[in-house]
């Protein structure tokens, strides 16, 4: 396959960026999208040009590092991570636009690499259960109803890639934040910190400069792990519940 790539190039956080056009040839439909970019980078290095920087690591769809907006879609046309997108999803001769996640809370580091540390800070604000090592009771002491365990798992699947933010017209992090809150708040182990968790995490999310939710549903459509939009509804419910409870104290 022969393709024209238009790639966002930006030297560093402070520099201005622009789209640059590259031609790549000899692309196999079996290549992953990132392998196609590898091919481009090999050529650029030999030409003495700066290769395109992009985040990637496990390349099996679980680490959440890869983060490209392809033709306007976070992670491209298939519902998966960029690393699991294959070139057979494109046609010979296509022009493909490749851009970084765009959100004020995710500043560009270089080219297609962005800084997602805001997500870490949201987790730090309360996305955990306080269980110091060694203090744990016997695992079977507290049974967890299977539907609750399944609900928790469904939300725990979030890989923290940030596609939800990238896809959201408001640059909101509601889906990410709600996934963790729902995972922990439904479990009996998470109950003691249930209120502070949702209040603190939402406050941190706002603090980071993410937008608000207008329920466009773009986040859930882009989510490679299929975290449902309803996750946000559950979080709102938790938040209102916590606000009421805390104000009563």
């Amino acid at each position, binding site marked *: 396959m022969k393709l024209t790539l238009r790639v966002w190039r930006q030297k560093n956080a402070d520099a201005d960026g622009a789209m640059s056009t590259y031609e790549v040839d000899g692309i196999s439909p079996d290549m992953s999208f990132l392998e196609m970019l590898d091919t481009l980078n090999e050529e650029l290095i030999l030409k003495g040009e700066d290769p395109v920087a992009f985040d990637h690591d496990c390349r099996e769809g679980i680490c959440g590092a890869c983060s490209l907006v392809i033709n306007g879609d976070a992670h491209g046309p298939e519902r998966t991570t960029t690393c699991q997108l294959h070139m057979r999803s494109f046609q010979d001769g296509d022009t493909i636009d490749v*851009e970084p996640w765009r959100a004020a809370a995710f500043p560009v580091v270089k080219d297609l690499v962005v800084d997602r540390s805001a997500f870490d800070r949201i987790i730090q604000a309360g996305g955990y259960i306080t269980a110091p090592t060694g203090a744990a009771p016997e695992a079977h002491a507290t049974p967890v109803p299977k539907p609750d365990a399944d609900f928790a798992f469904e939300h725990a699947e979030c890989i923290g890639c940030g596609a939800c933010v990238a896809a959201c017209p408001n640059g909101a992090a509601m889906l990410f934040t709600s996934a963790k809150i729902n995972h922990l708040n439904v479990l009996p182990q998470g109950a003691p910190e249930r209120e502070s968790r949702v209040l603190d995490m939402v406050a941190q999310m706002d603090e980071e400069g993410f937008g608000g939710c207008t329920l466009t549903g773009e986040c859930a459509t882009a989510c490679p792990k299929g975290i449902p939009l309803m996750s946000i509804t559950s979080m709102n419910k938790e938040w209102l519940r916590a606000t009421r409870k805390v104000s009563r104290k």
Partner: protein
Amino acid sequence: MARTVWDSTVGKKTVMAVSGLIMLLYLVAHMIGNLKIFFGAGEFNHYAHWLRTVGEPFMHYEWTLWLIRAVLVVAVVAHAVSAYQLSRRDIRARPSKYVHARPRASYATRTMRWGGIILALFIVWHLLDLTTGTVHSKGFQSGHPYQNVVDTFSTWYGNVIYIVAMLALGLHIRHGFWSAAQTLGVGSRTRDRALKTVANVLALLLTAGFIAVPVGVMTGVVS
């Protein structure tokens, strides 16, 4: 608590949801009242007069009406200020656009902000037209709402403004009602279809009900 709510994006959305639902409730009543126009000037004018005497003798003349107006003003202001602040925030959160842009989300969703602005402007016009009579087309007659309505919808621009605004209202309610349910945390997977249906039905009924009046005037059913 008020502080927590107002300072949080989720809290502001709650304010929008609650104020939106108050307005929606009002609109349903308003729309039903409007339909009385099809039963003649007498019934319609009587209804309009009744609005001022509701609650008597407990309430004084027009007290109930002013109470409702006060609640509505608070709802409109809260809704608008939250919307403005949230929109500002949303735009700041996404300062640069994608070079490769493509339409996202449904039409109703995308038009929430513009629709809201259209509706705000409409409310101003609507009050100046039929409540105070300031911009009324012919001589505004206080206490004769039937004639005032007929006059308004006898002008082309009166019809255009009104119908466009009501279409915007339909779209606004369609996404807004369902959205409010999510914000208030009452949505769920099992309830989602029902909520969407209710939103669609509400949007359709309100739009149709409201538009019926100018259509009635235009077709001569109401004159």
